[in-house]
């Protein structure tokens, strides 16, 4: 039973992070390898706002989310906007370089030691019982947040005006522009949503188990989840995250705890061999070089 609970929590973490990758890729065909570092930035911003608003945690969280979403939009406007039309390698490397820059800056501003935003906000993390299993409060919050985010995104992309426009821009950017859709606005929106979900994940994880410099590593492990499901499919990200999380938890428990860092990539390799475009991805993605 505890295994199942662990799988659900890990799958929620991975899928919340993975939808960030999927959002940006689906809309602008850019792979944002700085997602982990931006997530970390969001969590550290929570630390900063926590010291400002330590009386009202809700306000601190809201402020941090606002700040990090703004940071995501700024990343697009100042940097990625200028990389439209460049080669795949150049765009990926720009995000990688950005990630490195953000990581360096974060360590400089805050120290590399482990931090505890939960303490700064004076909130506790009691363990709840769920049948025979134990789960911490913030983990429950994470699972619920993940569900809420996915429902919201499904509805928005399917039925919302701008969601439709985002999908259109992802399929045919030139036609979208010719139909009056402001591509830069759509891309900025995608980056904002992606950073929003990413920092939400980062903050919840930090509140649950503390904040360290290794937060981006988790994002790197969530990336195979996005790929397994198909880089341009949200539903696929959910499914992919579940598969990767299940594999990881079970193999750690039954085989070898050291495997935890490499299992997502083994799953990734397996999927790349069998079905490179992921479970629900569109096949044409493969030939885009």
């Amino acid at each position: 039973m505890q295994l199942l609970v662990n799988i659900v929590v890990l799958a929620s973490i991975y899928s919340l992070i993975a939808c960030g990758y999927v959002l940006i890729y689906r809309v602008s065909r850019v792979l944002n390898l700085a997602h982990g570092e931006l997530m970390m930035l969001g969590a550290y911003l929570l630390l900063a706002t926590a010291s400002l608003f330590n009386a009202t945690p809700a306000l601190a969280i809201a402020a941090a989310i606002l700040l990090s979403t703004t940071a995501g939009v700024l990343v697009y406007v100042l940097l990625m906007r200028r990389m439209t039309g460049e080669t795949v390698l150049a765009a990926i490397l720009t995000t990688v370089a950005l990630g490195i820059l953000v990581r360096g800056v974060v360590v400089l501003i805050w120290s590399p030691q482990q931090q505890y935003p939960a303490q700064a906000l004076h909130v506790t993390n009691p363990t709840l019982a769920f049948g025979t299993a134990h789960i911490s409060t913030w983990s429950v919050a994470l699972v619920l947040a993940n569900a809420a985010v996915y429902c919201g995104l499904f509805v928005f992309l399917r039925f919302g005006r701008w969601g439709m426009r985002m999908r259109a821009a992802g399929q045919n950017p030139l036609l979208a522009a010719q139909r009056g859709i402001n591509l830069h606005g759509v891309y900025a929106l995608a980056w904002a949503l992606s950073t929003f979900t990413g920092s939400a994940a980062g903050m919840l994880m930090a509140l649950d188990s503390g904040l360290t410099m290794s937060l981006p590593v988790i994002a790197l492990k969530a990336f195979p989840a996005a790929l397994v499901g198909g880089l341009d499919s949200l539903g696929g990200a959910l499914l992919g995250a579940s598969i990767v999380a299940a594999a990881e938890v079970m193999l750690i428990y039954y085989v070898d705890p050291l495997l935890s860092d490499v299992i997502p990539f083994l799953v990734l390799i397996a999927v790349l061999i069998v079905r490179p475009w992921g479970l629900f991805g569109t096949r044409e993605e493969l030939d885009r070089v």
Partner: protein
Amino acid sequence: MTLLRVDQIEVIYKRVITAVQGVTLSVREGQIVGLLGTNGAGKTTTLRAISGFLGIDDARVTEGTIAFQGSRLDNRAPHEIAARGVVLVPEREKVFPNLTVAENLFAPVARANARGQHELAFHFFPRLAELRSRTAGLLSGGERQMLAIAGALVCQPKLLLIDELSLGLAPAIVDDLMRQLLAIRSELGIAILLVEQSAAVALELADYAYVMENGRIVLDGDRKRLKDHQDVQEFYLGQARGERRSYRDVKQYRRSRRWYG
């Protein structure tokens, strides 16, 4: 009243390839203007120059001006140009393939209030109303062209740019489309700039036409003048006068064509 005025434009791809040079044309309100020419003449490039390039092709209008109702259009972003009322129906990739027909019509951004625009689209193309929930990528060629024009109508254009109306379509469907375009022009007063390889279709529809070759305009005139012009008849309408000739004669004649300018 002149809606669109293109004045001596030069379009260069990748900073070295001149696709269009010294092209001047104009479209008046409610007029249907045709742009004829063979492959590679620069017609699509001219239309793309008017409707705006997206950084992808590394193309720029390097000389000349494009003015729509007095304001400059050259080298602006495509969505700004669409917002002013100049909307393009492209030659390839003219619909959003993974969206349904209805979503294709909801996605574009209209100039003003979009209420009722979709009804207008279904009014001109009733077939689309039946296909509302079909994925656009699964439509037939004719239906796709209808959806493309309808998608452009939703943006409430004042000037419609159509690239290759009849390419790959059966003649019956082309007739249908032509009838609808004439209806659109008369009911909504929208001007149309039509690029066509099929001179017959173009000269059916257009009030006035330009002939392009190698990036320049070589001939222009109203419908009657062009239909009666011997060179247009020979090279575009396939109505050679006299008996059969050998290819060698034709080739020689080509060199002394009576193009103006």
